[in-house]
């Protein structure tokens, strides 16, 4: 449709809109520059300082101010041009079909390539502890993102307190392991179940809420869990956290230099990297389990009901779908994966404290889901890589790190307002599976 559609009248229309666009871009740039002038005139234009006798001394920096305003003016034009070229609406029409098919091929290849690469990371970077640790961190967030994706992306329920389930999972493992001496492999399902239970508990009061109200209550829930952990000293150790959490074992074989350790049994020399590599594959397996279960669930009636709920709750009820249990299962499933990730976090760190479970974590995971494109598994993985890996990439920029990172996010959102992978893949098809454009897919009402 797009290839044939660009005929003479269409081209003419583009040229007309481009002529109008120049005036528009210029106007927008002038407005931006004016706003910048007002903002920076005091912040940059005048510099004040306390003099040696305590009096106020000030001097002007009009040169810097002019440079700043000019930058904003030029930047605004560049941004507008970029927006018009790569704009979200026009991308499909401007990119020629051949490039599109190449891109589609690349898109299809990216998931398997990424997966193979991830499997090989510990082999390639065996001697680079930093990369391995970063890989584990990224994979943890991939898993958290996939877990939250069930709630936010599929069921369309905005959850700002996801970190609560992460915390429940982490503390479940930490306390069960340190108090009763249970092994990681026994505690892992228990942590998931406990977190799911908390998910249902959160689900009940918020069933009737939508949108902003749902977001606020889930946010409060996340804070409540954190505050309970801080204040319930006798159980959780309060702000001191839980220390001495046992490290995971390879089904009972510890990864230590001891005589019964894995290295000794295999007859190879012990290296602390073994444990890191083991943790890497452990979180990879957990993340892939999350992915596999989510993909399966989408094709089952429950997953379709989640998506239908996101699309239209009233229609769901008219079709005899119990929206209460559907929402609760979404919360419980998402929470369970959060709990698994929490248990992994506890065993990796060996020490947990409430500081690890602040709202910032919830916000970061939610940002990953939104940036990835709500509901898309691959998108979430790419977004986690970009967010966590990208943040590390800018480490050399010191105090400008946040600024550059924020700017990158803004640009990305201008380019792709519905996330990296904005379209939705159907769960069942008769002949061909066409991706569904994000314009049609609802975001849910919370």
């Amino acid at each position, binding site marked *: 449709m797009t290839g044939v559609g660009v005929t003479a009248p269409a081209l003419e229309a583009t040229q007309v809109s481009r002529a109008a666009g120049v005036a528009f871009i210029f106007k927008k740039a002038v407005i931006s520059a004016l706003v910048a002038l007002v903002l920076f005139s005091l912040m940059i234009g005048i510099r004040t300082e306390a003099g040696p006798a305590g009096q106020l001394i000030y001097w002007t920096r009009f040169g810097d101010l002019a440079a700043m305003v000019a930058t904003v003016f030029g930047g605004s034009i560049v941004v507008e041009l970029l927006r018009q070229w790569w704009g979200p609406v026009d991308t499909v029409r401007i990119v020629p079909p051949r490039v599109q098919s190449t891109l589609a091929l690349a898109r299809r290849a990216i998931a398997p390539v990424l997966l193979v690469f991830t499997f090989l990371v510990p082999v390639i970077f065996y001697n680079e502890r930093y990369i391995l640790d970063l890989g584990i961190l990224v994979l943890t967030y991939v898993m958290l993102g996939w877990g939250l994706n069930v709630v936010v992306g599929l069921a369309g329920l905005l959850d700002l307190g996801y970190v609560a389930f992460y915390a429940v999972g982490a503390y479940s493992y930490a306390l069960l392991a340190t108090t009763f001496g249970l092994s990681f492999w026994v505690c892992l399902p228990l942590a998931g179940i406990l977190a799911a239970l908390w998910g249902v508990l959160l689900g009940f009061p918020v069933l009737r809420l939508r949108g902003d109200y749902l977001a606020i209550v889930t946010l409060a829930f996340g804070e409540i869990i954190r505050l309970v952990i801080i204040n319930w000293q006798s159980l959780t150790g309060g702000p001191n956290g839980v220390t001495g959490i046992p490290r995971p074992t390879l089904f009972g074989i510890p990864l230590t230099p001891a005589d019964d350790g894995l290295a000794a049994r295999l007859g190879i020399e012990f290296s602390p990297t073994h444990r890191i590599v083991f943790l890497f594959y452990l979180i990879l397996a957990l993340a892939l389990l999350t992915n596999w279960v989510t993909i399966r669930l989408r094709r089952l009636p429950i997953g379709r009901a989640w998506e239908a709920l996101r699309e*239209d709750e009233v229609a769901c009820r008219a*079709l005899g779908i119990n929206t209460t249990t559907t929402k609760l299962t979404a919360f419980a499933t998402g929470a369970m994966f959060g709990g698994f990730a929490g248990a992994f976090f506890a065993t990796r760190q060996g020490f947990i404290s409430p500081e690890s479970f602040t709202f910032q974590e919830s916000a970061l995971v939610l940002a990953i889901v939104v940036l990835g494109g709500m509901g898309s598994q691959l998108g979430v993985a790419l977004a986690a890589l970009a967010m966590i890996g990208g943040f590390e990439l800018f480490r050399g920029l010191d105090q400008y790190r946040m600024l550059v990172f924020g700017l990158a996010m803004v640009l990305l959102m201008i380019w792709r307002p519905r996330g990296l992978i904005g379209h939705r893949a159907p769960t069942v098809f008769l002949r061909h599976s066409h991706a569904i454009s994000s314009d049609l897919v609802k975001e849910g009402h919370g």
Partner: protein
Amino acid sequence: MSGDCILTIDHLTMRFGGIVAVHDLSFDAERRKITALIGPNGAGKTTVFNCITGFYKPTSGTMRLTHDDRRDIQLERLNDFRISKQAKVARTFQNIRLFPGMTALENLMVAQHNALMRASGLTFLGLIGAPSWRTAEKRAIDQATLWLDRIGLIDRADDAAGNLPYGDQRRLEIARAMCTEPALLCLDEPAAGLNARESAALSELLLSIRADHGVSILLIEHDMSVVMEISDHVVVMDYGVKIAEGTPQNVRDDPKVIAAYLGADEEEAIAVMESGT
């Protein structure tokens, strides 16, 4: 009226604060017949539908649904999704409510949710890919395919529902309601926005649904050509009360109905009618 009624509405009243949307309404819908509910805008027709399908709790009155096996269900005692799940009442909406981001086929699969949930062992059997689930899923796809074929949308099965033309969306919504295997199908203005040819096709579809599936249909409609052609019984409402009922022919000649539609006083209309005859 004969005794074989699928739906008996008795003294139904729905009040919103001080406004009485439906007042003391009683009527029956016969089994395997098409009953039309007509009336001017704001007469309370959709409110009646919302009461029947559980979106509103009526202020007073009863609604009894009698299944083929003589099982009675009091609809006012069930809430929202149970009306569709247990009482087998399906509905469509005045402003189409499909799942726009899902394909036509997916829309029909969602409609079979309750049957598929049972077949998937509440998800657990489905998760491990049990053979019983696979066959159930295949059957559900066949059922959906059948309906897509029937409404002429088989070629667009894999297109997003939100991308379909308006008339197709209307038919898809009816097919989706039918996929819940209802005993009573409630259609809220199915011909709204359709052209004459599409309206005729719709009439045909509704008649064939009734003939092949033994479904009783309750219909709200403004398009008189559709109402007159397919309904067996017509109930006319105005200002929340029933003003007439009978066969399409009877209703069409009723002075009260003409008055309601033309906005004239009742006496005036009767006077006009009498002077005419």
